[in-house]
């Protein structure tokens, strides 16, 4: 592994990151908030470290191999988390640095679980920084980096694949940088539209910006203690539902539409399945709310749709206290946390396309039970999926469940009740945000002890980088300097 190359890359990334941090700094200066010193110090520290690292390697000499790609992506997320925590720490809005890191990782991984019980007392600049971490992490910090630094052509594919979620990576454009640029363009347009709509629906401009960052990135940090319940506005809930569902779908679809100027790409199996899951869950939950708690049918549908789209896209907004809902609806929401949105979206979880592939493979395997010599290929949207990919998906599922089980035991060890502990882990591993009970929609993660927070922080990162990228650095071969062949 070539460490100077990785440091060079990470240094440049930190410089860009310091640039992002100056946005809340400017806001703090403009509003003359007391948090401006905290931001000034954080920007300075990040920039300084970035400059030191960047000197390790010149852009033109960089060759990025498999190991360097994995190393850089993991390093980028770790550094971005550590440095992004500085403003929270310096502004003293959290009790310990672990809390600050938790908040930042929760932001960058678009989880949206908070350790700050009273967010309404925070300065606007801090609120903006929380939303900004969502927005940067949503499309991926590495993807942003690919856009901003034109000369890193070598190995960008590897970097891209190591960060962007999903079982398969279909590039739409021949050059990865074009893909990355277009993805960010679409991302920007969605954010702009969402902001304008929220603004016109009655939010203040800053709230609209914050909430649209959190929505498009499927994050879930809110500027209010009671999340979207605060506004109690049908218009706002519908706008947010719509954009959450949009963000939970594969951005490659939008990209294809953008390029080909046709609506055909919407006829995508994963997208249709995703919408059907939302529809089915909404109807079942609305039915249960209507029959079991006696909400009026319209209100039941409104609440059910918002919560379902918030949980399946792993946003984590709440428009009602779903912790008080009947048991069955809780279990459905709990399962949606695992399913997650589409591959290539900003959402977390296992992803709908993986579930589709596994279900198809299982069905085909049953056929092989009857006709052992039959050869069955699995197709998705007409494309044959190779065995290697299917294997990876099977293993991914196994890893996801095992990590969930192991982390749940650890979290239960910190004193949470079994189901609360499971929901806390499912919500962080799936980058959702709130869970049930102790970590429910009206409470925060502040009550968990430091060990528990550390475990959940790892869960968020593991979930965002989809296991392989993080786990691979634990292999001994990874650290060998020379190739063995």
């Amino acid at each position: 592994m070539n460490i100077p190359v990785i440091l060079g890359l990470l240094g440049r990334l930190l410089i860009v990151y310091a640039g992002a941090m100056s946005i809340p700094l400017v806001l703090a200066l403009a509003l003359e908030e007391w948090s401006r010193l905290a931001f000034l110090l954080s920007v300075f520290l990040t920039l300084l470290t970035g400059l030191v690292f960047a000197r390790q390697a010149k852009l033109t000499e960089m060759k990025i191999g498999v190991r360097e790609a994995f190393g850089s992506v993991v390093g980028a997320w770790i550094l971005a988390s550590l440095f992004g925590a500085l403003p929270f720490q310096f502004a003293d809005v959290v009790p310990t640095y672990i809390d600050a890191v938790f908040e930042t990782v929760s932001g960058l991984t678009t989880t949206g679980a908070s350790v700050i019980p009273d967010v309404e007392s925070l300065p606007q600049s801090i609120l903006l920084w929380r939303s900004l971490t969502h927005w940067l992490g949503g499309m991926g910090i590495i993807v942003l980096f690919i856009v901003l630094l034109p000369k890193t052509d070598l190995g960008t594919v590897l970097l891209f694949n190591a960060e962007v979620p999903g079982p398969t990576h279909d590039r739409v454009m021949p050059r990865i940088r074009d893909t990355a640029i277009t993805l960010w363009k679409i991302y920007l347009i969605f954010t702009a539209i969402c902001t304008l709509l929220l603004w016109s629906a009655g939010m203040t401009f800053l709230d609209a910006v914050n909430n649209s960052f959190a929505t498009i990135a499927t994050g879930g940090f809110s500027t209010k203690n009671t999340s979207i319940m605060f506004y109690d506005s049908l218009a706002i809930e519908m706008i947010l539902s719509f954009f959450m569902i949009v963000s939970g779908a594969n951005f490659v679809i939008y990209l294809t539409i953008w390029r080909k100027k046709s609506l055909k790409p919407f006829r995508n199996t994963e997208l249709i399945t995703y919408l059907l899951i939302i529809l089915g869950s909404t109807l079942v939950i609305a039915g249960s709310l209507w029959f079991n708690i006696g909400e009026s049918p319209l209100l039941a549908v409104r609440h059910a749709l918002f919560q379902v789209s918030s949980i399946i896209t792993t946003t984590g907004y709440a428009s009602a206290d779903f912790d008080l809902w009947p048991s069955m609806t809780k279990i459905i929401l709990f399962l949606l946390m695992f399913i997650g949105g589409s591959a290539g979206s900003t959402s977390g979880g296992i992803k709908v396309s993986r579930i589709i592939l596994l279900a198809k493979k299982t069905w085909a395997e049953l056929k092989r039970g009857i006709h052992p010599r039959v050869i069955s290929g699995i197709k998705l949207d007409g494309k044959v999926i190779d065995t290697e990919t299917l294997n990876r998906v099977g293993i991914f599922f196994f890893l996801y469940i095992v990590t969930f089980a192991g982390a749940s035991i650890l979290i239960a060890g910190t004193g949470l009740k079994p189901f609360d502990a499971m929901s806390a882990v499912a919500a962080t591993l799936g980058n959702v945000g709130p869970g049930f009970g102790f970590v429910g929609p009206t409470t925060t993660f502040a009550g968990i002890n430091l060990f528990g927070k550390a475990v959940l922080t790892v869960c968020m990162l593991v979930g965002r980088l989809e296991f392989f990228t993080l786990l691979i650095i634990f292999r001994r071969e990874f650290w060998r300097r020379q190739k063995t062949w």
Partner: protein
Amino acid sequence: MNYSLVRGIVGRLLIGYALTMLIPFILAVFNRESSSSAFLLSLTITAVLGFLMYRLRESTEGKMGIRESFVIVAGAWFFTSLLGALPFWISGSVPTYIDALFEAVSGLTTTGSSVIDDVEILPMSILLWRSITHWLGGMGIIVLFIILLPNTGFGAVQLFNAEVPGPLSKRIMPRIRDTAISLWRIYTFFTLVLIGLLLAAGLDLFDAVNNAFSTVSAGGFSTKNASIMHYNSLAIEGIIIVFIIIAGGNYRLYLEAWTKKSLKPFRNTEFITYLSIICVSTVLIMGGLWLTHDKPPDYALRHGLFQVVSMVTGTGFVSTDYDLWPAITKLILFVLMFIGGCAGSTTGGIKIARIMLLTKHTWSMLTRGLHPQAVSSIKLDGKPINAAAVNMVSLFFFLYVGIFAIATILVAGTGLEPMDAMSAVAASLGNVGPGFGIVGPTTTFASVTIFGKSVLILCMLLGRLELFTLLILLRPEFWKTKNRW
């Protein structure tokens, strides 16, 4: 499909089944219990039905194919469940037939969850019949049938494979019937030894026999309401712990040790992992009990070990009310329900061999992330495992978790709390027995609605036949009469 052949074999099996009902009938007559007429009626119905099916066959000629073997196994379990429920229903021990069916399926699948709140008032014959269903189902009714009817000849291998759990069925002896006979011989031997030991520990003959049947089959029905708590005897718990651990090991190991007269077969990776899991879980639970509940170490060791082995093997005996234990210990027990014992044992669950294969597969997948061209094969005890088997294992895992998720929604819909519903399904699917909360160690499944019971019945059968044997019947190809080639 050769229905004639299927009818002939299932018919003969039912006649054999009617004979086993004679045992509780004789006991009932001997004790002048009111249930004697119930048994007489049940065994007459079973025998007549079996005889009719057997006589209605056109010929016993014809080849047994894969499809016939699946239908025979599914049919055998279906009919033995339906008919095995008759004594409970006719004698009035349970309120509805679904309850009786639940009890019978719970017995045959060695689950051990009961719908009878007060078992101590039941006639002895009914108690014995519950334990007998455990004992028959433990080693497998089809396996028993292979022994009792020598002229089934060909096709026995397929029947064997469709019923005996495990990712890799391997025969030790050239003829399947010899394997089956030896397995039953060891099974009977263990049962007899256990009866002797329990008698020596102070149980009366009736309790010793019933508990031995329940233990060796990893079942869990007890003759007392408070399960093993009732005796509160260290000796009895110790004896049962040893035999539960034995029951959770792979019977092929005992068979090999028996035939080769050496202890070498015990140097088996799965067996060692199994014992390690028991040790680690016990230590963790002891720690949890000691630190958070101030239980003395001897209490923690005794009950921790008992509950761990009871859960991991899917027995479901209870030595103390673990529902009152801290959250972490409950979650460990919950996870153990999924893991289950060794392949080729009488236990339920996913099985340790599968978990090991998946872990190894994951590890080799990470190597391939670094060296995409690497060819890696997975070995277990020095033998390479082919890729198709590993794939089946990861699909099995997916199906297991998927079925668990769907069944949990349904059971939660009947009004159980989320954690209670999850534990009820996990306990049924893993053939464990009691779960937590409303279906906890000191309560029964009586309060679950009829719909919920039906779902759980299905879970027990799916879990016992390891999903594929039953799910394969859902493929449309399965029911086509002619092979297309």
